[in-house]
């Protein structure tokens, strides 16, 4: 059998199930090394050859896809790792069960980064202001819209000492 990449004799045969479809790739020694088939991290090997975009007719209902990075539940199952931080929201279902088998608990009790918390609060109020701005414009309350805009700008410039603001 010939290598899928060059024309040498294939010695490495790779079979993977991607999104419920079996994919087989045949490679020669050189190409398998060049493509990192020995990569111990073992991420999407077939994708490396077939292109990540090779997802023809996979939009089946049981495959969940992360809207942020495109990682799928099938990949998660195969690799055991997440695609991006937002995957923890996308693949929330069944996560607690998985985590309780790995850890002492399923809730974080350790260090909390102050800035990440401040950011998420700021983002939440930003969302509120955006909504308020939209309705003000829709209802032609332009003076109020201008006021909201100023408020949004103030929120965007990080305050040096934001600690004193009550929760």
């Amino acid at each position: 059998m010939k290598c899928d990449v060059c024309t040498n004799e294939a010695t490495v045969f790779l079979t993977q199930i991607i999104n419920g479809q079996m994919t087989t790739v045949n490679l020669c020694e050189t190409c398998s090394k060049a493509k990192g088939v020995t990569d111990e991290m073992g991420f999407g090997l077939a994708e490396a050859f077939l292109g990540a975009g090779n997802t023809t007719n996979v939009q089946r209902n049981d495959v969940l896809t992360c809207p942020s990075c495109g990682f799928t539940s099938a990949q998660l199952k195969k690799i055991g790792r997440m695609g991006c931080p937002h995957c923890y929201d996308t693949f929330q279902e069944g996560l607690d069960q998985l985590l309780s088998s790995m850890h002492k608990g399923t809730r974080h009790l350790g260090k909390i980064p102050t800035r990440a918390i401040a950011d998420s609060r700021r983002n939440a109020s930003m969302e509120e202001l955006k909504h308020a701005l939209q309705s003000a414009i829709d209802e032609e309350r332009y003076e109020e819209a201008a006021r909201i805009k100023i408020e949004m700008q103030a929120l965007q410039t990080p305050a040096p000492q934001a600690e004193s603001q009550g929760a």
Partner: protein
Amino acid sequence: MMRFSTLIKNPADWMRGSGPHSEIVMTSRVRLARNLRDYPFPGFSQEQQRVDLLANVRSVVEALPEMKDGFSDEYVNLSKIRKQVLVERHLISREHAARSTGCGVVVDRKQSISIMINEEDHFRIQGIRAGLNLRSAFALVDQVDTELEQELAYAFSSRFGYLTACPTNLGTGMRASVMLHLPALVLTDQISQVVKAVGKIGLAVRGLYGEGTEALGNLFQISNQHTLGEKESEIIAQIEKVIEGVVRSENMARAKLKEDSPTHLRDQIGRAYAILRHAHILSSKEALNLLSLLRLGADLDIVPDCDRGLLDMLLLEIQPAHLQLQAERELTPDERDIMRAEITRLRLQSIAPPVNVSHSESPPPTGGSFQETNDE
């Protein structure tokens, strides 16, 4: 910033210093896994995204006060041998060394802190201390982490903590590990019991260079596996408690060896010294195992006034990549064994031979046949 050669020329801070139980506990290391909110994890990102991330964060990491005058480079500029040297120094992981484009590392002057960029997570921040000192190693990385967090948007959820590529690191993202030298537990065949007991409490036991590596030179690493559902301080306190227990067992085994078979012990240490001082071919495995015995001899005052720092440094110098770095070329395994023996002979010149113990009241007359040691 510091050049690679300058970094490597000097022994790391932990090799020079000593800490609690440093006759048995070689090092305490703590690493934190951290990620940025708006990038996919390195294992699922495009090469360009990793390149962009590295370009965006490298100067931020280099600007940390702890990293002043440290070493920093991208992996595309580092040869395979240089990366392997960093692995042997415990400054980067084997997995990270296998990568290239978009990856980099920043190491502080004292080789106490290293920050890997685009490992399995965007950041792996590691602190290393001599002896049993996990709290102090944690304090190092905690400080760096707090400073980084002021500049970067971390991926954090109040429910799951620090979000990591692998759910096994979720929460604190912290792995605390201790490297132990346990020759007496190995010699008295008690090590497998200890490993089993430690495993039962949910801690992992590994060899010298981490997962899947052999416990060469009687060196073992013990680390936590759980990262979620506990505070950092609780995880560290638990490991320290377990390590105190292992140290006690090792000390008991050492006392037992000294008590039950002193001649046998002296014989083993004397032979180790003799081979290390005179061999011309030394495999890595043989050298590590003999150096372990020499270190045991030093701990038990059988090898007097032995410089431990010298032994620690030698242990690194004879690793394959360190040898090749010094030779400035790739070496075959045979060539490495010859060079390893040469360096070992040279370095050990300054170490006095083990105490010579005679088992009789007066030394045997020349050509005499004293029968003291034939107790079998």
